[in-house]
């Protein structure tokens, strides 16, 4: 039986960011990962560090996302120095294009509501009309009525991020345990024992970051994580010379030159198959935005599953029944990597979540039905 200071269940972007933060803080940390059969949002995501649409009606989520975007540059630099892997971070701000006047009106109303809800914290945004956009985006389609802009948005190479977090974790002394499944768990306050089919590990702290797997794991630790899969599909074009100076929400060009086209959402359970009608809609919106995209070859396409809480907002929690057990659930493992490594992990290392995390508790789903 091996003893650790902390166990992180999950080796995707969420688990790896938290595990890296714990190992960096000096905790002897084990990171349990599944094999290649796992549903891996960390390898199917779009690679945005996206802030502008996060937290409508939930300003605590906007603040948390902004905190993460602010932590991203130091995390990226630190990982680069420690692992020699560039995570390709660019944060030039971002545009969300609107097709037609109706979309633009809705978007403007949403952005204004975000600003009002932000209060003294502030929320800087601008609406751009199509003439302003055409000056910075060549070959803009006539369907584009305008766009919203905030300075907070960016994008990165999320595969390199996952690689760098894993490498950094191991270099800080972390024990990476892949191809493992939790077969049994015993929980007591500050005393957790995890069976991994034949081997056992123990620690006074445990963080559940197993993505969709958290739904079944959480109750074993007096926690709740009612997450469901939400499918998203992505199309990827051939590489072309750099054409956009910033990411465009559902469209972005990687540093290597491919253009990624998204985004969709479907509730279809644990099904990662692709659907032509969804792919067609993604392609249509892209071509309406930029007719020249139709000339590019599509070289890859895939579907992946978001980890989606019932209200779309992340769930962070600590167990009151078994202190020392924490859970982290979200569909934005790239955007929130900065917060997970540099804010959430230090809270776990300190032993308790900051009061700012209280609105993210799963207790928000326990509201009794009105009489």
């Amino acid at each position, binding site marked *: 039986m091996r003893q650790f200071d902390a166990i992180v269940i999950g080796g995707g972007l969420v688990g790896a960011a938290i595990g890296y933060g714990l190992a960096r803080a000096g905790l002897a940390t084990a990171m349990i990962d599944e094999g290649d059969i796992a549903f891996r949002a960390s390898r199917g995501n779009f690679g945005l560090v996206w802030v502008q*649409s*996060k*937290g*409508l009606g*939930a300003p605590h*989520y906007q603040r948390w996302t902004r905190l993460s975007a602010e932590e991203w540059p130091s995390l990226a630099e630190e990982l680069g120095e420690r692992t020699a892997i560039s995570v390709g971070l660019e944060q030039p701000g971002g545009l969300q294009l609107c*097709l*037609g006047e109706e*979309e633009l009106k809705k978007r403007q109303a*949403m952005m204004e509501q975000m600003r009002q809800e932000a209060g003294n914290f502030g929320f800087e945004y601008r609406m751009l009309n199509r003439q302003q956009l055409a000056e910075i985006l*060549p*070959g803009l*389609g*006539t*369907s584009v009525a305008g766009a919203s802009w905030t300075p907070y948005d960016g994008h990165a190479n999320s595969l390199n991020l996952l690689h760098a977090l894993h490498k950094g974790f191991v270099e800080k002394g972390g024990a990476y345990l892949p191809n493992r499944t939790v077969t049994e768990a015993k929980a007591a306050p500050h005393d957790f024992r995890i069976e991994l089919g034949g081997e056992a590990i123990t620690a006074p702290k445990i963080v559940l970051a197993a993505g969709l797997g958290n739904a079944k794991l959480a109750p074993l630790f007096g926690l709740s994580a009612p997450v469901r899969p939400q499918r998203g599909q992505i199309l990827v074009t*051939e*590489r*072309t*010379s750099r*054409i956009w100076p910033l990411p465009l929400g*559902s469209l972005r060009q990687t540093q*290597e*030159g491919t253009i990624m086209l*998204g*985004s*969709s*959402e479907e509730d279809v359970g644990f099904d990662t198959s692709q659907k032509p009608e969804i792919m067609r*809609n993604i392609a*249509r*919106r892209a*071509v*309406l935005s*930029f*007719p*020249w995209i*139709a*000339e*590019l*070859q599509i*070289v890859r396409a895939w579907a992946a599953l978001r980890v989606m809480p019932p*209200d*779309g*907002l992340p769930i962070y929690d600590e167990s009151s029944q078994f202190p020392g057990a924490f859970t982290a659930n979200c569909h934005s493992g790239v955007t929130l990597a900065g917060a997970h490594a540099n804010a959430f992990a230090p809270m776990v290392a300190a032993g308790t979540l900051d009061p700012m995390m209280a609105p993210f508790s799963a207790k928000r789903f326990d509201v009794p039905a009105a009489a």
Partner: protein
Amino acid sequence: MTVPQGASAASAVLLAGLAGARETAISGSGRAPYCMMGVCFDCLAEIDGVPNRQSCMVTALPGMRIRRQRGARTIDPDAAPDAPPSFPIPEPRSGGA
């Protein structure tokens, strides 16, 4: 240059004894056809004026012009015709959370 009927454009490149089919998009280093089954993308070539084609997946034809793919392709954004106005606008992703 003649090749057996049904041979791929990548086979033609190899039969011609050329050192490479392309130069990579980032570092510009040379690459030759490798996997010959549509996976590795190292056989990219400009075929009959169309850039970035996987030459191992294209059957060689009489008169075909195969040129080296030099770095990333370029595109002229202003040359493309706009989508027809009858094109319906699909709903965007609703979620912003």
